[in-house]
């Protein structure tokens, strides 16, 4: 893990309230899909956890939604400015030997799946991607996943893009079997995936303080009993492992 004043290469809006930021940083050499970075936003006390969306040589890409004060400040940062990063944090999605993998992402749960898709496609794995959003204006990264050679299915709650409904509706509509799934998104979606997936991993969110496993702020209960830290033992957990 590294703390670094990294250089912002770009910071653009890609959907309603959603921004993509490219950052020049040495953290990239240590990063794995599903890990996150902790971002210090000037004027706010705690760091903000944001998933790594893409890992390139010397560059990390993140995608974030403006939800509160900190992300609002982030959205105003400009290329050329520096941003204080710490990471990479947590245990990400393992890249296994599989014929087919289903990536299920909801809203700002989509970004960490992109690097997964890239790495699985590099292994010539067959990658199905199902993305859920609220409305057409919220949709992002469909083209990007397609360009990797994934089959992409989209659902929106209001039906303004793709299948109307949730990701589960899209799976049903397209008769996709959730055999081996990597999922990231809102809790109801993760619960649904956790219940139906044969195998796979879910990535969780939690309010964090330290982000490295020291404070016990971000815990989840394990099905087998005891607690796990989302920031260190997760954010990615085996399907069926945690009480959602």
């Amino acid at each position: 893990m590294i703390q670094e004043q990294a250089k912002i290469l770009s910071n653009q809006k890609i959907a309603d309230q959603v921004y993509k930021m490219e950052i020049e940083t040495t953290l990239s050499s240590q990063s794995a899909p599903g890990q996150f970075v902790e971002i210090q936003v000037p004027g706010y006390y705690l760091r903000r956890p944001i998933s790594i969306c893409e890992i390139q040589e010397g560059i990390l890409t993140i995608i974030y939604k403006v939800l509160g004060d900190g992300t609002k400040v982030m959205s105003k940062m400009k290329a050329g400015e520096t941003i204080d990063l710490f990471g990479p944090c947590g245990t990400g999605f393992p890249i296994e030997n599989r014929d087919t993998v289903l990536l299920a992402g909801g809203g700002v749960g989509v970004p960490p799946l992109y690097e997964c898709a890239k790495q699985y496609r590099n292994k010539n794995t067959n990658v199905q991607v199902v993305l859920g959003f609220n409305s057409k204006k919220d949709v992002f990264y469909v083209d990007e996943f397609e360009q990797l050679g994934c089959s992409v299915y989209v659902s929106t709650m209001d039906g303004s893009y793709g299948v109307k409904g949730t990701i589960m509706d899209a799976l049903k509509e397209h008769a996709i079997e959730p055999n081996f799934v990597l999922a990231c998104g809102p809790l109801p979606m993760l619960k649904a995936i956790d219940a139906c997936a044969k195998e796979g991993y879910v990535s969780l969110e939690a309010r964090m303080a330290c982000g490295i496993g020291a404070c016990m702020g971000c815990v989840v209960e394990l099905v087998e009993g005891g607690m796990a830290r989302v920031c260190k033992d997760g954010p990615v957990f085996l399907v069926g492992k945690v009480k959602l």
Partner: protein
Amino acid sequence: MDLHVELPGLSLKNPIIPASGCFGFGKEYAALYDLSLLGGIAIKSATPQYRAGNPTPRIAETPSGMLNAIGLQNKGVDSIIENELPFLANYDTEIIANVAGACEEDYVEVIQKLNDQPVIKAYELNISCPNVKHGGIGLGTDPVLAAHVTKLCKEAATKPVYVKLSPNVTNIVEIAKAVEEAGADGLVLINTLLGMRIDLKTGKPLLTNKTGGLSGPAIKPVAIRMVYQVAQAVNIPIIGVGGITCAEDVLEFLNAGASAVEVGAQNFVDPYVCKTIIEELPSVLERYGYRSLQEAVGRSFKDE
């Protein structure tokens, strides 16, 4: 400049100690820097048994600070002895065991179990827990109760006992004196202020536990005031805590009367903060004209 500080049971190579609950048992930070650099480490509160802690969310941000309601989650003293202390024994730094409980007997039990652990150099009693037997009044907010638990712990302990006081009291000096009289070897000031945030989306408290402990720079003025008041009233050393972010803040606590300090929430914001402070403290002391660390201690109320 020599940063050495000698306190009861603690031979600190510098006055910087990560605060209890903000550094776990050191493992995570050991991946970032050598723990032997630290003066000491106050490890996470230990209770006799496993405690699951409070339901999440346990963390909320506040202006220049944060609230936490971890609820003393820990694996219990036996597991700590087995799984955490051996790792800490690898480092050349002074380990302070923070002791907590739901009643006086809990404190004594934890201490008895830790007495023969050579890696532990001193105890720090966390008497700020609001859930105790005595009619719902925290041990730490009543001088008689605070003195009594201190006395019991001193009788049980084979190592020096520091008492970590709650700032949520009308008269901190009264409690500090009661605890000193009961035999405390030192004081740790302050634990968190009791605070709350409401989630506007639900209209309900953001933390499931409703209230939480406020820490961070926001509380530093309160901590400095309490250290200043208590340092003039007692004859035992004080370890200052509350909102420290840099070497200048450490000097402020020394001036207020602290002999050493603990750094809490800032470890989350800047995981290297303790290392950085240790590196910068000598030059900060020199910049303000000190020839020794000791010269700075209590300067705010000493005649010159």
